[in-house]
């Protein structure tokens, strides 16, 4: 638990990241994602509860643990009069050394000019500086807090490749992100947090199970009582065409029922990560009244 004055930023958050996985960390602004990462970095001390990082105490053993991890913040602030190259070297040296070959290779891949002063970089380029510094160091854990919010699609693809390579070496990543496609592409497991509490965690397949699938079918005859089947809602019948939404766990029974009507075509749409996300935040969108939950 962690409070700032009367505001409770983390409220019984339970999160575990296994070695060798890329773990997606989702939640709206202010849900506590950055606070969690700052606790893991030993910048903030929890009021109660326990945080463990790489087998150590993130507060007490901060400097020692940091040799084994690298961090990229979402909002990278650079020193106005140090060049990007100087910052990469500085962060790398402070972490205990840089892989020279990787440094050069990453500068090429991210097309970053290391001779510019910090004040001359755009947001995306500042982020590249932090990414190169993090990826060029020899670490086993990456903490990434919305690391691609300023990158163009080409550079985001480069970033995905780099994370894939990092994982293939058996290393671990905690990736906080708003870009759901990125999370779907990269992450083995996902945690969704809300108001400082973890509301959902598991593989994408597991999470999909928790939500609904939409089904559209063309039938010879429409069977009776579809809307009475457990877990089915929003049934819409138009002549021989049926559209309905069903809880993914109840899909089986619905398919059986549809088959009795003589299936001519069937389309089913698995839930996207966006659906998962909206399932947990949809009520907030509806409450605010200006969102479109579809």
């Amino acid at each position, binding site marked *: 638990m962690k409070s700032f004055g009367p505001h409770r930023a983390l409220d019984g958050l339970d999160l575990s990241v296994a070695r060798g996985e890329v773990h997606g960390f989702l939640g709206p602004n202010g849900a506590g994602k950055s606070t969690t990462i700052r606790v893991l970095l030993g910048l903030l001390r929890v009021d109660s509860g326990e945080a463990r990082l790489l087998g150590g105490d993130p507060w007490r053993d901060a400097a020692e643990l940091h040799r084994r991890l690298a961090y990229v913040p979402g909002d990278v602030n650079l020193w106005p009069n140090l060049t990007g190259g100087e*910052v990469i*070297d500085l962060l790398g040296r402070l972490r205990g050394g840089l892989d020279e070959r990787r440094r050069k290779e990453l500068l090429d891949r991210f097309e970053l000019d290391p001779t510019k002063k910090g004040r001359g970089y755009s947001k995306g380029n500042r982020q590249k500086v932090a990414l190169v510094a993090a990826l060029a160091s020899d670490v086993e854990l990456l*903490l990434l807090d919305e690391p691609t919010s300023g990158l163009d699609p080409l550079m985001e693809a480069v970033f995905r490749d780099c994370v894939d390579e990092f994982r293939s070496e058996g290393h671990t990543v905690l990736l906080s992100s708003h870009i759901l496609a990125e999370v779907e592409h990269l992450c083995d497991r996902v945690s969704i947090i809300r108001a400082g509490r973890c509301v959902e965690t598991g593989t994408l397949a597991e999470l999909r199970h928790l939500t609904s699938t939409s089904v559209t079918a063309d039938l010879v005859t429409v069977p009776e009582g579809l809307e009475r089947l457990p877990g089915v809602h929003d049934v819409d019948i138009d002549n021989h065409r049926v559209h309905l939404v069903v809880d993914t766990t109840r899909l089986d029974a619905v398919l059986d029922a549809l088959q009795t009507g003589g299936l001519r075509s069937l389309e089913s749409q698995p839930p996207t990560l966006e659906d998962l996300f909206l399932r947990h935040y949809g009520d907030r969108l509806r409450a605010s009244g200006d969102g479109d939950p579809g």
Partner: protein
Amino acid sequence: MTGTVLLLRAFLRRDRWLYLWWGLGVALLYVSQAWSVDGLYTTQEEFDRAAANMAGNKALIAMAGPARALNTTGGQVTWQAAAFGAVCAGLMSMFVIGRHTRAEEESGRDELLRAAPVGRYAPACAALMDAVLANLVLGALVAGSLAAYGLALADSVGLGLGLSVTGWFFSATALVAVQLTASTRAAYGIAGAVIGVAYVLRAVGDVGAQALSWLSPIGWYQAMHAFSGLRWWPLLVPLVLTVVVVAVARAVFDRRDFGSGVVADRPGPARASGALGTGWGLALRLQRPALLGWAIGLLLSGLSFGAMGDSVGDLVGDSSLSQQMMLQGSADVVDGFYATLSVMLALLAAGFSVSSALRPRSEEDGGRLEPLLATALPRAGWLGGHVAVTLVGTLLVLALAGLGLGTSYALVTGDGGAMLRLALPAMTFAPAVLVLSGLARLLYGVVPRAAPLAWAALLLAWVVLLFGDVFDLPQWLQDLSPFEHLALVPLQDFSVAPFAAVSVVAALLSVVGQFAFLRRDVH
């Protein structure tokens, strides 16, 4: 030009406090000279003697300007305030122009504005009008306060208006400077250098090579001879040249792209030097420009203080007010005077020390601490680097200030033996200076938001030094200033016990602050 008036109104709204503080500050600079001159000398005889002494002192002339009618209040005000007033007007103009033009362009806000129906020249035009108005306010406050004090009306108006026009000229040069570079800081560097050159040209000119003063905007202002045969025609020079320089700014503006300068931002090194890899190396690199600036400033202050030589008795005068202020009530004029000046130098050095101790706070506020602490750099190592720079830097600027004082005193008086005797006292106040920065450090560790309060402690030390005896401030209040507990070298003999005690206090403040920082949340 569309939108100029609208922009000007928005600028004026943003700048109203700036107007007020600069205006009051500069007006006070002028009128306080009148007040202090009238307080210092009780008889005209005494005044004449001091004036003759000042007029014969080349160092003072280089610092202030041509010596004219120094045995009158108005002449003294003009002499002591005009050059510094012009520098202030120049700096204010530079900031007004810079913050509404290049700073807006650099931050990208200007882009937003230009997408609206606003003419190409509107922002620059509005900024220039803003600076013109700001300088008029400045001049009016100076003229008004001097006239209200009881000095001749025409001369007061001349001194005020001359200041406004000088400010206009520096606004125009600043407008050129902001076209030249893409960075606001660099533009301030260029505009500031123009002011500096103007000051130096007239200093050299006033001491000997008369013609040089006519190349300086500050020289034109002083050529008006306010309170010593006022003449208006020298105003024409800056007025005409202001128009010319604005036309130059426009020509440069037309030839550059939005967001860029004429001088491109130079690329820096692609690799960090070997020193940039430790907490100390980083802190030194970050604080180096400021340290260099303070070191030069303190050396020059020491040099100019020492240039007053050994004829200080006449300068100070016989009134008890000035004796208490400048000699701390002692009978030994030279030693008392230089003891006071040494404390003043130490208080100037405290400006570096406190701002250096507050640097970690601006690093943390700027979000530049987080990525560092995510590396293997321990908190103690990061802050320790800054502490070391503050400590070493403070001792360095104090040493340079003392060196300047001793050297120029020895040169002016020909008394080589006095050099060390006057160079060392500044260093003996180091523990008191470090108490002030230690306080800043303690506040930073415990309540970082309140850390700038350390400036208030520095202000208190100034007040106690200058007015403690004059206003008979209560003893407990005076005791709050760490300087009050140290021996007033060279007036008094150096004393080890208080030196050690104040040093311990300084160390305690700093160490407790550092420990508090290790235990708190970092944002």
